[in-house]
């Protein structure tokens, strides 16, 4: 999100500040360690996770703009550090961690952010957000309050887009085939934008759509909610 999708992160900061919160950001290069973790290299993931944990320990709430990074911190850090000295810290940070849309809706109780986007959109549920964190309602509750926005659910909305982190590079043919199915479902809705709370899914989907020359555009949920 730092290098490739700064607009999403900037939108999150601006929304949280408008709601009166003081935002602190981890330093340059802070990565949750999910790429090595998901590939099985837990020993290589731990130093990265440890560095992030230390930076997050003072925060009242940790808000993450990605379902998969959110699942990493909230769900997998306790497993990654089970039986290690950082276990308690991992547990405590996990308990304070929220995915962005969940933080707004469930923690703050806010759904209307005064945004407007007169367009047809379809929403893609990132699998980690959907199945590891159980996020389904919050993004939709937020989109429902965006003026002019019409949400059209796509067929098989809960089917994976095929990104899957390093999987997308290790098994590109399978990843691409899955992505083609997803893009087909999104295109069928006639939407102008495909919105998600996960930038990595969007990178994959946008990559396929651009290559195919399709006009459908991807947007992070925070960008939609910051569209005033």
């Amino acid at each position, binding site marked *: 999100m730092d290098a490739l999708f700064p607009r999403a992160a900037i939108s999150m900061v601006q929304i949280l500040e408008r709601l009166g919160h003081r935002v602190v950001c981890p330093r340059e290069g802070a990565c949750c360690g999910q790429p090595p973790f998901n590939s099985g290299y837990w020993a290589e993931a731990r130093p990265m996770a440890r560095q992030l944990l230390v930076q997050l320990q003072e925060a009242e709430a940790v808000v993450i703009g990605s379902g998969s990074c959110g699942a990493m911190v*909230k*769900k*997998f*850090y*306790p*497993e990654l550090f*089970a*039986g290690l000295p950082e276990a308690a810290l991992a*547990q405590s940070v*996990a*308990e304070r961690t929220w995915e962005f849309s969940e933080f707004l809706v469930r923690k703050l109780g806010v759904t209307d952010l005064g945004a407007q986007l007169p367009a047809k959109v379809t929403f893609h549920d990132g699998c980690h957000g*959907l*199945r*590891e*964190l*159980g996020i389904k309602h919050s993004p939709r509750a937020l989109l429902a309050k965006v003026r002019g926005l019409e949400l059209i659910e796509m067929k098989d909305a809960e089917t994976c887009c095929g990104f899957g982190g390093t999987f997308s590079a290790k098994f590109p043919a399978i990843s691409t085939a899955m992505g083609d199915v997803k893009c087909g479902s999104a295109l069928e809705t006639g939407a102008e934008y495909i919105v998600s709370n996960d930038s990595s899914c969007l990178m994959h989907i946008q990559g396929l759509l651009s290559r195919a020359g399709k006009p459908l555009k991807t947007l992070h949920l925070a960008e939609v909610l910051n569209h005033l």
Partner: protein
Amino acid sequence: MSERKKILARIREALQTAAPRPGSHAEPGGKPHTGLTPGGIAARSAGHDPAASEARRWLPKVGGSFEEQLALFAQNAADLKANFQLFASWQDLSTALGQLRDAENWQRVASHQAELSSQACAALDRPVCWTDRGYDVLAMEQCDAGVTECDALIAQTGSVLVTSRSAGGRALSVLPPHHVVIARRSQLVADLPAAFALLQAKYAPEFPSMMSFITGPSRTGDIERILVLGAHGPKKLTIFCV
């Protein structure tokens, strides 16, 4: 050491370490995934034993009255493409049997000697291949219908419960192309737990060697997932209840 001993020894060795209870993982809603932390380990025999009777609360709902259960059975049978009819009298049932025989031009039937099946065969008035004292498989295969009794009708699923003792052996209810079940209305039970309780009460510990829930006529979807009836067993299932 025999293989039996070796396998049992490997099992006992493996079970020295307990596994976490199911459902302690992977619940959405953000419960941390703690894997095999000591808190997740349950002792081998600890914890709540899910009584199988608990299943009744999760399975598809069945009404309490006979009328509700009958209506549910009839609906399920229709969905399964089985022919179910309830008759007010034996006279009505035997008339309907005769009509079925004539409509399908039955030349011979197979059956077993029991009160209802024998009466049905008498009403059918066709040569019968009786299974009770051994039978010729080729002769049974030539029969147009197999007429049997049953142990129960299950409202919840539209199933007929037969056993090798109640329904003339193992083949009679699957070899002929049309299986005709003659049942009493008192044989209708609400659900699967009730059917298993019935089997226990009626037979344990000397169970028949075969007990089968028949749920509609034989079917397959192995060609393009398109439903075809009568794959190997009967193409038709008729349940006449009196």
